[in-house]
């Protein structure tokens, strides 16, 4: 009898936990479905739906230069997903991908012993982990990014942390990205504070900022699939799958946060600091929106 009672209590506890766990991401799931749905509809048939989504794009260009219909995973290609001229140009560039050498460097760094004889593998026995970052650490009560994880691995092994955003840190992250290719993004919202962090990131995404008074949303949702000057605007859906990216403009690799910070600066507002709370929240929200998409990075951009 007692055994039965314990069983009932245990089952009810587990199910309560599941219900609560589902509750924390209820809003986020609603947002994500609407987000994905918008992009799938927008890129289903740009020619037929020109009035609704692309009123100022010349019809001739829609017919000639647009790739459609786009499926969920197609958004892994960012601005190249929909714009044929860019896709063709970068297909040529990636015959000999400029990120290959930095990725090799990253592998070397990953396997090179620290002064204590251990390597990064002591922290990342399985390097295929990028799909889980950034994650909300409930014990530390903060968002942990993959860059932080790399630096924390160094510190506990007695090494100095690396500079965020680029250089050796981006190389190690690029190596982890390659190892994680094909894994589906799986961002969780484990508790109430994580849900709050998600909401803060969402707010930043939709907030108009800088002297241009534009939001991430205006360029990378509403205007995704249009050109700013000659440049194809990337869809926010799938944006984090390609990271880190080798940018020709940078002449090297950069992490998601480096790219986001640059974009914020372009709107005419102050450049946010790497690993600052707002930037991590924005990355958390943005990555959550691509949940379920297979990782594809690193890739090459202008």
């Amino acid at each position: 009898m007692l055994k039965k009672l314990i069983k009932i209590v245990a089952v009810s506890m587990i199910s309560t936990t599941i219900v609560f766990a589902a509750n924390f991401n209820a809003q986020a799931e609603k947002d994500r479905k609407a987000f994905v749905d918008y992009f799938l509809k927008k890129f289903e048939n740009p020619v037929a739906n020109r009035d609704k989504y692309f009123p100022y794009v010349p019809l001739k260009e829609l017919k000639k230069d647009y790739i459609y219909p786009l499926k969920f995973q197609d958004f892994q290609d960012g601005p190249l997903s929909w714009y044929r001229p860019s896709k063709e140009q970068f297909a040529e560039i990636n015959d000999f991908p400029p990120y290959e050498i930095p990725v090799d460097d990253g592998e070397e760094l990953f396997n090179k012993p620290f002064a204590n004889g251990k390597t990064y593998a002591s922290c990342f026995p399985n390097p295929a982990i990028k799909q889980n970052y950034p994650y909300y650490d409930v014990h530390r009560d903060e968002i942990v990014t993959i860059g932080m994880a790399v630096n924390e691995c160094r510190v506990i092994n007695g090494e100095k942390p690396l500079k965020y955003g680029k250089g050796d840190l981006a190389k190690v992250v690029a190596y982890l990205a390659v190892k994680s290719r094909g894994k589906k993004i799986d961002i969780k919202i484990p508790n109430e504070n994580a849900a709050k962090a998600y909401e803060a990131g969402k707010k930043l995404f939709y907030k108009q900022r800088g002297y241009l008074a534009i939001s991430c949303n205006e360029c990378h949702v509403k205007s995704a699939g249009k050109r700013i000057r000659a440049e194809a605007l990337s869809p926010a859906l799938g944006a984090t799958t390609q990271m880190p990216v080798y940018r020709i403009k940078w002449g090297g690799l950069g992490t998601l946060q480096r790219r986001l910070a640059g974009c914020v600066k372009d709107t005419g507002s102050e450049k946010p600091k790497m690993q600052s709370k707002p930037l991590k929240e924005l990355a958390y929200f943005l990555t959550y929106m691509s949940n379920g998409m297979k990782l594809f990075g690193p890739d090459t951009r202008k």
Partner: protein
Amino acid sequence: MISVKKLLAIAIISAISTTVVNAASNEALVKEGRKVFVTKKQGNCLACHAVQGDPSIPQTGDIGPKLANLDAYPKAYLFEKIWDPNKTVPNSLMPPMGRSHKITKHQIDALVAYLQATTKSK
């Protein structure tokens, strides 16, 4: 004693020269406006807008409408649109170039002059 004839001549000459000066200054304003339109650190308007009647303009974006027939609008209306488009269209994507002091009032006047002269309806 100035004769009526002489007075008339002076008046005509001054009228003509004013027109000439006006035309010349408007031409300079149009030229300046085009520069504001295409310069990244100034208006950078071509990032989003194409211009009817200016085929020599560099590659433009297609986020906003192609600008056409703007001589049909009052100057003050166009000035307001560039100063702060959110006044007339609250959810406009267009940046408030005047309100945020990205460009000056004079530069907006120049833009209006350029756009009205270039996109004239025929």
